[in-house]
């Protein structure tokens, strides 16, 4: 076994895990705090990737595109919460699944109408378009290191926001008892809208950041959605800390699975999920 191989695969796994966390944290917040099963969350990720492609083509600058894209996504998230999701809190899960599944179809059709069914790739910015030598064997693309760094900063920021600030405390309180938080004089409607917008923006950001490292293609949202639900369930519904740990766990299982048991890599993450749920039926951390 080659040490360089383990090192690079570890970098790959960390990068994938942190990216997954950005998507899954929004999902777990919306699920945990508002109790809404949002199947359309993967569509926000896809939307981000297509935004990155379109805005980069328009502005010629990926970073600028990401900034504009994040703002647009957050606004869209707040609008969607106001128009659709705010009516779902008191509905049962079946109705939530139906509505959010309908949203997936709408997003896919919109994408098809607006940008077509083509597969696009986004260029890595010139100043990041180089590789770092790692060991004697190969080089590692600088953009992937950049991605890991950005995701790490965001993950830490999000963790501190939820676990260490007043807003975070209110969000967590809202997830356990909505009525009580409202009685304490906190505008729970706006708190929810904020959380939802944050979740949408995070998923879209993940899609935008990953666009140059991956491809922008129809159906990419569904793949991410499934893995994100695995993360949310393994981590414990509503727990940000759990989502972070579970993202990394799932990413390591997937990345190393692809190398050591390639024929079974597709099921590696589900085996991990099953094992953990047998051990802790409510996930790693209960919210």
């Amino acid at each position, binding site marked *: 076994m*080659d040490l*360089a*191989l383990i090192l*690079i*695969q570890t970098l*790959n796994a960390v990068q*994938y895990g942190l990216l997954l966390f950005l998507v899954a944290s929004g999902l777990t917040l919306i699920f945990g705090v508002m109790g809404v099963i949002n199947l359309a969350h993967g569509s926000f990720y896809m939307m981000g990737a297509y935004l990155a492609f379109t805005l980069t083509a328009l502005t010629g600058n990926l970073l600028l595109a990401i900034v504009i894209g994040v703002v647009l996504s957050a606004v869209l998230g707040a609008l969607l919460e106001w128009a659709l999701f705010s009516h779902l809190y008191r509905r049962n899960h079946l109705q939530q699944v139906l509505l959010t599944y309908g949203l997936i179809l709408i997003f896919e059709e919109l994408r098809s109408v607006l940008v077509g*069914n*083509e*597969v*696009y*790739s986004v260029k890595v910015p010139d100043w990041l378009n180089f*590789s770092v*030598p790692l060991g004697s*064997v*190969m*080089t*590692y*693309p600088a*953009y*992937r290191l950049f991605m890991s760094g950005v995701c790490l900063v965001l993950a830490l920021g999000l963790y501190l926001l939820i676990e260490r600030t007043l807003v975070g405390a209110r969000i967590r309180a809202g997830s356990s008892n909505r009525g009580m938080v409202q009685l304490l004089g906190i505008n729970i409607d706006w708190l929810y809208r904020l959380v939802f917008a944050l979740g949408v923006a995070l998923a879209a950001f993940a899609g935008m950041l990953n666009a140059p490292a*991956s*491809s*922008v*293609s*129809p159906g990419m949202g569904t*793949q991410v959605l499934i893995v994100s639900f695995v993360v949310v369930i393994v981590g414990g519904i509503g727990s940000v800390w759990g989502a972070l740990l579970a993202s990394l766990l799932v990413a390591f299982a997937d*990345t*190393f699975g*692809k*190398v050591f048991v*390639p024929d079974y*890599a*597709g099921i590696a993450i589900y085996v991990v999920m099953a094992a953990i749920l047998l051990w802790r039926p409510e996930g790693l951390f209960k919210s």
Partner: protein
Amino acid sequence: MSRLLSLRAVSRAAAALALASVAVAAQAQPAPVRIGLMLPSSGTFADLGKGVTNGFKLYVNEQGGKLGGRAVEYLAVDDESDPSKANENANKLVKRDKVDLLVGTIHSGVAQTMAKVARETNTLLIVPNAGAGEITGSMCAPNVFRSSFSNWQPGYASGLLAARKHKTAVTISWKYAAGDESVRGFREGFEKGGGKVLKDLNLPFPGVEFQPLLTELATIKPEAAYVFVAGAGQVMFVKDYAAAGLKTSIPLYGAFITEGTLAAQGDAASGLQTALHYADGLKNPKNEAFIASYTKAFGAAPDVFAVQGYDAAQLFDAGMRAVKGDTKKKAEMIKAMENAKLDSPRGPLSFSKSHNPVQDYYVRVARGTQNVMTDVIVKGLVDPSPDCKL
């Protein structure tokens, strides 16, 4: 009363006369031959479908719009590359539109269903792209032809090419039928040339997380690598390969890895060697004429898919000529198509017992946005199709 009777007699006579004249007219002017084009005009493969359609129509236009003395009528259906709609679409063309020839398609899953419908209804089918081995293998039929390739062929040719310079290789492919068939072809070609495949790496279709596989490839340190992915995967893979610093240390080979996406791949693809049955700007009189007339008609240079569409029409014409347009003489038509020796833009083209193309495979090098031919790797390559009982 008698007046009425005579009136009726007159009208009857007139009707009979009218019918007779129609029949005479019909004999003088035979009904057009009906061709069902079942190809994608939307989705990821839309451009490929357009190339096939353009190529087909170009040939027919070059014959003055007639095949075997009959005018040509097209009935087109967008197959959306969707296997779940394939049966309905193919049946619509065969049963409702009563086409004399079915042409399609790009997607292997859809083409396999088309082959099934063609077998059941004994309709003539020419597959102008899909490379699934079964079509001219276990599912082969007298009335089913292919004007493109089987996945095994370009894989095998690439294997021979890689074996010229290297002793060991690793393959990377999507885990699906086309990937498996292509890799099997590569392995056979590479081993025939004295090489050894150390390992087959793969990932689920249509994933593009190549990084972990590239890392493993680098640690196995083979002398060469072979890849089979398509569409979005091509661009991603070639770029990742260059970014991982592998391009110079482990030469990359592929068949379709550069087809149609060279502009998007940019510098990462420059110098990449591939083996395929066509190369951009191939030097032969037929291809030069083909490029000129294609460019004049459609305002862009043709690609391998246009060639495959053009040859589908040529192949059908060989049958039509043999029976002078009488499509009822199916057995005679098929015989003529089996024996056809076509002058294709890709070079000489004939057909194996299983109705798969017998063709030359070229070594191409990616230069700018062109796959430039540098050499011939194997002449008249036949897919052995051991499962075909024809």
